[in-house]
């Protein structure tokens, strides 16, 4: 009995020491983190053209100006919406086409880099590295280079976004593939199906809901990306925004119209895509239960 209480006492002391040590480690990590944040903020503030504290009260000047003008010239807004609608369609098309092309490329790349499905198993690390590199390239890098070679327009942006998308989706797709059952593939192999038949008939039906869900998420991201690339000269609504901004004070009504269009588009696409993604991940089980 005495032995036991002694054991508990030792255990307790041990536990308390462990907790103390853990708390101390947590405290040290927290202190380092806070120091990093504060010094980082100070460096960033120092290297910025305008300071944080001096700029803070001017933060709302520009939005106020733009929105003020928009309210003032509210009757011109519908005309501006009509005028900029084609470029909005172009931005959406850039995102759509690049998501589609990127997803198709990602599908092939991911199948080639998943164990058990790869066409050439020895090449798996090579395809993985290719995807890593494709994923690491920011869209703007490729877009700027291609704009120099091809001139402005939607094609450089489409290629740039598709390239990055292929890498980013490829990684997600290959994670999905790893959870897919290999039995259909083996079954197809036993009846003499070649690689593409095995993949299209054996793997794709299993993984397509997840693929679609990821592709939709990517489409949301790519709409933003294509708007940004427009700003550096790749056509679409971003390009119009840059022009509208350059008119300067007193003529921000066009910029305001573009802001509103872009905002509405992003919100709508987000909502629609999250609705469908929800259905893709949860809706299927409901249907099964109903059937």
């Amino acid at each position: 009995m005495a032995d036991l209480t002694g054991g508990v006492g030792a255990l307790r002391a041990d536990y308390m020491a462990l907790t103390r040590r853990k708390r101390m480690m947590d405290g040290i990590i927290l202190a380092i983190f806070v120091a990093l944040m504060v010094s980082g903020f100070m460096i960033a503030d120092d290297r910025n053209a305008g300071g944080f504290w001096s700029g803070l009260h001017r933060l709302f000047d520009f939005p106020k100006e733009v929105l003020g003008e928009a309210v003032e010239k509210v009757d011109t807004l519908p005309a501006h919406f009509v005028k900029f609608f084609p470029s909005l369609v172009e931005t959406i098309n850039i995102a759509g086409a690049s998501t589609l092309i990127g997803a198709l490329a990602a599908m092939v790349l991911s199948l080639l880099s998943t164990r058990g499905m790869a066409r050439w198993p020895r090449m798996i690390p090579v395809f993985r590295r290719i995807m890593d590199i494709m994923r690491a390239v920011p869209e703007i890098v490729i877009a700027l280079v291609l704009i120099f070679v091809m001139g402005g327009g939607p094609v450089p942006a489409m290629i740039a976004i598709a390239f990055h998308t292929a890498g980013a989706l490829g990684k997600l797709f290959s994670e999905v593939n790893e959870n897919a059952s290999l039995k259909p593939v083996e079954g197809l192999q036993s009846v003499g199906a070649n690689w593409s038949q095995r993949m299209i008939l054996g793997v794709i039906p299993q993984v397509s809901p997840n693929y679609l869900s990821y592709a939709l998420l990517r489409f949301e991201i790519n709409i933003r990306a294509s708007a940004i690339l427009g700003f550096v000269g790749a056509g679409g609504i971003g390009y119009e925004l840059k022009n509208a901004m350059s008119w300067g004070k007193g003529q921000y009504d066009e910029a305001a119209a573009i802001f509103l269009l872009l905002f509405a588009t992003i919100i709508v696409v987000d909502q629609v895509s999250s609705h469908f993604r929800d259905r893709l991940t949860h809706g299927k089980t409901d249907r099964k239960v109903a059937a």
Partner: protein
Amino acid sequence: MSALDVDMIPVKMQADALFRRKRLVSFGLPALVLAYLTYIFFAFDIPGLAQRFEVDNARALVADSYSYKTHVTRDNRSGEVSVAIEGERKGTYEAGTAPDWVALGNETLIDLGEGHVVTFGAENFMSYIVPGYGEITAQPSRAKGVDATLPEGDVPEWINVSRNRMTVTTEAGRLTVTRNRTEVFRYFAGWELFFFTLDSPYHGLGFGEVMARALGGEAADIWLDFWTNKMWRHSDVAWALFETILMAFLGTMGAAIVALPLAFLAAKNFSPLMAVRQVMRRFFDFFRGVDALIWTIVLARAFGPGPLTGALAILITDTGSFGKMFSEALENADQKQIEGIQSTGANPVQRYRFGVIPQVTPVLLSQILYYLESNTRSATIIGAITGGGIGLLLTQAMITQKDWEEVAYYIVLIILMVMAMDWFSGWLRRKLIQGDEGGR
């Protein structure tokens, strides 16, 4: 038996309908994709791309990104000969000095290799001996223009000659003669002066020798010459990379700190007031919906270009994303643990601290770290728009339209930076989340 048959009929019809739909989807979907891509093909005017494609730009870009040229120039008015790498002032050889393939003197002999020799003679006379073709000579003057003499026969297409200008492009180099200038380019593979510029005593030394000198006590000087290289500006580039990572770090972590308390207000199981939840959610939607592009423009007006603007733009956009994701994670938190903590008499703060935070930490951490990597890329893009970090250097190098070797260098650095951040965030994620599982 017959009863079974009757039962089977509707099932069979159902299965047939299902098959029909499957067939429609599996043929309809590819057809739809193809139709959309065809529409894009014409909407984006891809057939017209061939005309807009600037082959010269592409060739210059590719050639310049892995090679450099050295200019040997004679001013035909003063007779002075100068040698400059890439024709830049920063890469000019001091007067009277030249690389070993150029022999200065009364006659300047330029050996382009493989038998190609250019001679700058007296009185502005020049000759270029092209093996297998013959000798091209010119006597540029104010009165008679270039006054070129070519070997007998038709003028080949690699020579372009008119009264006031002659251009000769061979595999060994390029010669341009005008009335005022005679200029020869010789191409070399590699990035010129990457380590040391011409004014540094370490230029042209081998790696071994530089190392030997570094060990001999000159390490600080060597490092200084490398670090302050005027051509490649290594210190500026390092700062720019640091700024970009700083933007991503400050933005991501700041957003996480702001979003966590707000997420509690937006989560169903922690915030009983429906109105508060709705307001918070619309708040998050608004921050996400006004894209990083617009935030960058708005913030740049207030704070000017620089890393702080980029960090704040990332912070604001991601507050929306994190708020949404965190509140979803909190809604998925297991209620039982919270009740367990409550049963020991814990107050609300303690319930959150010990009942909720340990549950959601791994999820939140992995999301934050995933965003840290993705924001490194965003920070590059934002830097290109608002002016800060490596994105700014990249756009600056692009605008000159000739420093493609620097563009290639920055692209390689950006890719390495993003991959390093990817690796780092993955490592940290494994470390922290595994550590949590072991410790708690």
